[in-house]
């Protein structure tokens, strides 16, 4: 099974490398077929991987494990031993970086999502990208490999490596094939996230260094690190410091208000495929980071500081993001702001720190990937047709493009959280989890549901209903586009799997929950009956102790 994972990692990378190698000489139009082939193979492999994983899970039983992070499949190989390696004894104690790949329920789910969105991205770029095609698809596929790498890395440094690596292909995607302000957007996105993740690196290094000093021999391995911190918790104040350092990078990546300013710009300027991947999986790297580092390793800090801070920021993000979405006239920007709001729900769920909330949070990660991905896809479709995304220029498209309108209504309903579609279980579980912790935050967050319905329905009404309003057809490329047609077979092929997944999760979320539940329970167990720490009293006690020693 681990071989399958390696093949899955290498297939998009290999296809991307191939495209890059022949970028100068190949027939440009053949690039998309290679890309489609590569991403379809990756999707098939990921589905096989998920099926294998389910079988393994059935075999091993679904009981929660002892360590908060417990991959069921693992591959470990020494990468670099940093420290004294002069004698074997010393080398065993030195800090070891490893190629430590593995799979648990959460990573399997996210990998399948990534592979699915990969195919959607290729299909959505089919006609939209006409310039430097093979390089475009190469960047897309390499990005996909990088994201899959993040989700299956179980070494702290390896995780960081993939986390950082994803910046590079996305930077090129935005900066070469983006909108008019692409250079600015790409640089802002790159520097903002890079600066954040460097602070995160300091946090990771503190985690590693503290455990290494405490005698853990492979302090970079996430499962061992988490188990070690369960047995030897850090001093609560130190936990808060490390939590803050780790959070900077993850909060920027998610992004949580007030670190979200790079996101709308990057989304608006990115090509459709870039937006789909950015919203669909790259933002999840932030929440996934919280799930892998903060929640299992720093329980006191998460409970005492993280819970209120994340909840308040998420609630602000939900309300602020929704209000911003409400006043946008550019549909793509509206969807971008809706991302800020939806990820607020996700954070709210994760930081409920109980099984319901965290299950909801992870579900919301998947849901947001599917529905926002689909929203960006449809926005891309009518942008390709009309070369505008402004609500004021468009109206009544339902009569012109009935199938597309139907798709849009369906996806909007999923995004709003209509029962029976995927948004519902995710948001409900998140809010229910938070309600158990603190009803106030949950109530405040729930206003987002109303606001979400408001802005999405307003947008639907403007763009798809009412009297027909179309911008003047651009004559210079008229010959290429012909008359405006409804959704094509290729576009349908991109949209249908997403819509089907939305419906499936909405009707039967249980199989998905079964896959992720054991891993979530393992983390949530840390918080069962854990009282919050009184940090102030602790600090006072420390000061008194110190002055006592001096006397």
């Amino acid at each position, binding site marked *: 099974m681990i071989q399958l994972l390696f093949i899955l990692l290498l297939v998009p990378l290999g296809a991307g490398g191939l495209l*890059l190698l022949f*970028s*100068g000489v190949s027939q440009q139009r053949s690039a998309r077929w290679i890309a489609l082939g590569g991403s379809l193979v990756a999707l098939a492999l990921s589905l096989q991987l998920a099926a294998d994983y389910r079988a393994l899970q059935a075999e091993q039983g679904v009981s929660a494990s002892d360590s908060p992070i417990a991959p069921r499949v693992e591959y470990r190989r*020494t*990468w*670099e*031993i*940093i*420290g*004294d*390696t*002069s004698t074997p004894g010393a080398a065993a104690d*030195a*800090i070891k970086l490893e190629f430590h790949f593995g799979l648990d329920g959460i990573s399997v789910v996210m990998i399948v999502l990534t592979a699915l969105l990969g195919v959607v991205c290729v299909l959505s770029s089919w006609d939209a990208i006409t310039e430097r095609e093979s390089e475009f698809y190469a960047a897309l596929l390499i990005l996909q490999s990088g994201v899959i790498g993040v989700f299956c890395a179980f070494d702290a*440094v390896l995780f*960081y*490596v*993939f986390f*950082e*690596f994803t*910046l*590079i292909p996305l*930077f*090129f995607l935005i*900066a*070469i094939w983006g909108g008019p302000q*692409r*250079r600015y957007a790409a*640089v802002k996105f*790159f*520097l903002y996230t*890079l*600066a954040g993740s*460097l*602070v995160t*690196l*300091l946090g990771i*290094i*503190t985690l*590693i*260094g503290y455990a*290494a*000093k405490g005698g853990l021999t492979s302090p970079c391995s996430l499962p061992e690190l988490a188990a070690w911190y369960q047995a030897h918790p850090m001093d609560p104040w130190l936990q808060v410091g490390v939590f803050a350092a780790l959070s900077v990078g993850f909060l920027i990546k998610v992004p949580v208000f007030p670190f979200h300013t790079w996101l709308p710009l990057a989304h608006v300027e990115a090509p459709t495929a870039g937006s789909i991947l950015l919203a669909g999986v790259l933002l999840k790297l932030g929440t996934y980071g919280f799930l892998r580092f903060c929640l299992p390793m720093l329980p006191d800090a998460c409970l005492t500081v993280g819970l209120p801070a994340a909840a308040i920021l998420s609630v602000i993000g939900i309300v602020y993001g929704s209000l911003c979405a409400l006043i946008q006239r550019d549909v793509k920007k509206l969807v971008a702001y809706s991302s800020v709001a939806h990820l607020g729900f996700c954070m709210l769920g994760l930081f409920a720190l109980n099984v319901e909330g965290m299950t909801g949070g992870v579900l919301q990660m998947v849901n947001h990937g599917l529905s926002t991905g689909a929203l960006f896809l449809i926005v891309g479709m009518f942008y390709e047709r009309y070369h505008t995304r402004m609500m004021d220029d468009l109206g009544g498209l339902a009569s012109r493009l009935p199938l597309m309108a139907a798709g849009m209504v369906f996806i909007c309903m999923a995004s709003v959280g209509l029962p029976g579609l995927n948004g519902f279980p995710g948001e409900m579980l998140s809010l229910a989890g938070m309600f158990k912790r603190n009803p106030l935050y949950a109530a405040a967050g729930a206003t987002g549901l109303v606001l979400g319905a408001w802005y999405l329905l307003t947008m639907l009404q403007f763009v798809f209903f009412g009297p027909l309003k179309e911008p003047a057809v651009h004559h210079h490329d008229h010959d290429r586009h012909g008359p405006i047609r409804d959704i094509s077979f290729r576009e349908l092929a991109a949209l249908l799997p997403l819509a089907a997944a939305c419906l499936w999760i909405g009707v039967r979320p249980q199989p998905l929950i079964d896959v992720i539940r054991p891993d979530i329970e393992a983390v949530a167990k840390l918080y069962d009956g854990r009282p919050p720490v009184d940090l102030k009293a602790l600090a006072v006690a420390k000061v008194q102790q110190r002055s006592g020693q001096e006397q």
Partner: protein
Amino acid sequence: MATAIEQLTNGVHFLAPELILVVAVCVMFLTGPFFVTEAGVGAPGLRKRWGALALVAIGCAGFVWWTSDAVRPLDTGPFRADALTWYVRGLTLALGALISIVLVDQIDDGHSAESQACLLAILVGVNLTALANDLIVLFLALELVSIPTYVLLYLPRRGEANQEAAIKYMLLSIFSSAIVLYGMCMLYGAAGTTNLAGIAEVFSAGKSDGAATLVRLSVALLIAGLSFRLGAVPFHFYAPDVFQGIPSAAAAMLSYVPKMVGFAALLRLLPLVDGLGVTEAVSGPSAQMLIAALAIATMTIGNLLALRQDNLYRLMAYSSVAHAGYMMIGLVVQSENSDVSGVGALLFYLATYALITIGVFALFAGVSSDKSPVRTVSDLAGMSRIHPAVALALAVCLFSLTGLPPTVGMLGKLNLFLASWGEGTTLGRSLAIVLAVNAAISAWYYLRLIGVMFFDTAPAGEKSKLTLAPAVAGTLCSVASILLFISPQQLWEAAVKFVP
């Protein structure tokens, strides 16, 4: 007690790689003039032969290095061979071969013999610095690096900028040598011997406690003089002007060799007075604080000044200043407190930085020609269309300088982070934070170069032809930076073997 001559003859077999290079230098200097006309013009293609000869000499020296395992016990002889020597030799020979390849096409046929000979002499000087066990030998080795460097910088004679660069470098280098020499004199005055092992013995015995002020002054002078070679602020101001005027092979050499000798000399000299009991005031804290302050100033100022540069060579000069600052962090970290050796992190970083930056200059040389020189940022416009492979290799190198995966630059920075943060002191932590901030700042100007290469359109007109040899050398560097990222263990072990 053996006489000096006896010591030298006993020590000769420790010098085999250097002797091979010196023989090659002599051959080139002596026979070179006979192959050119009186006007100094050589037959076309001559430069390739001299380049090949230099590579053969480096190859032979490398073979001897690889098969040697002579480790000389620390005694009163003029040379000592230890893990640092082994590391520096291997690194210098490998990188010297790369520089030599780049140099071949950067010099006219008439002056190629002298140029290659100077390069080899410089390499010998670097190795001798790491071999030195005596203040005199150390100083001579430093001069053996400096003097051929002046000639190497002057030989291309490409107009006024080049001459200005050569003169500027020469004057300031002599000035810094004088400062180093002054520092060494004081050290000799305090210890009464020029032998490094002897000095260490005197200081650790506490025999020279009366001369604490003298030793303190000498440490300050040595750090100042050697900072010039490292390119550390405030001794960096020559770097951009010099880099601006010289060809890329010389720039590649200047961004590696002076740093290597500077750090090798510091690694030899600082432990003498560091914590060995001269008095508490000299050892540990004061020298450590001095270097820490220099490191912070160097990386911050280097990066900030690089932001506004439009000339590629000036930009790379400031980048090399900034990287010197990162490396100095390794000197500050006290190894006993940290799981990760600071000196090991420094040596690892130095190797990877040198590899990458030589790669960058080699690629600049590869796409540059007399008709369309690549000297400013805008000269790189549209490179991804004209020479896609070169642009990709250059992008890999630049990402590596930024410290992004999957390149070895990331591991270099990670080691420094682990060393400084793991030390657990406020000083170490603040250095790590400054390093993180600077890494983010530096991303801006490296990204700018990548942006120009990939997003700008190429100017109309004749497209420059690729010079194959340097382009291949540069591409090798970028591939090596990815391979070293995947399996860094050998390099790291070689780097941490040396314990000062």
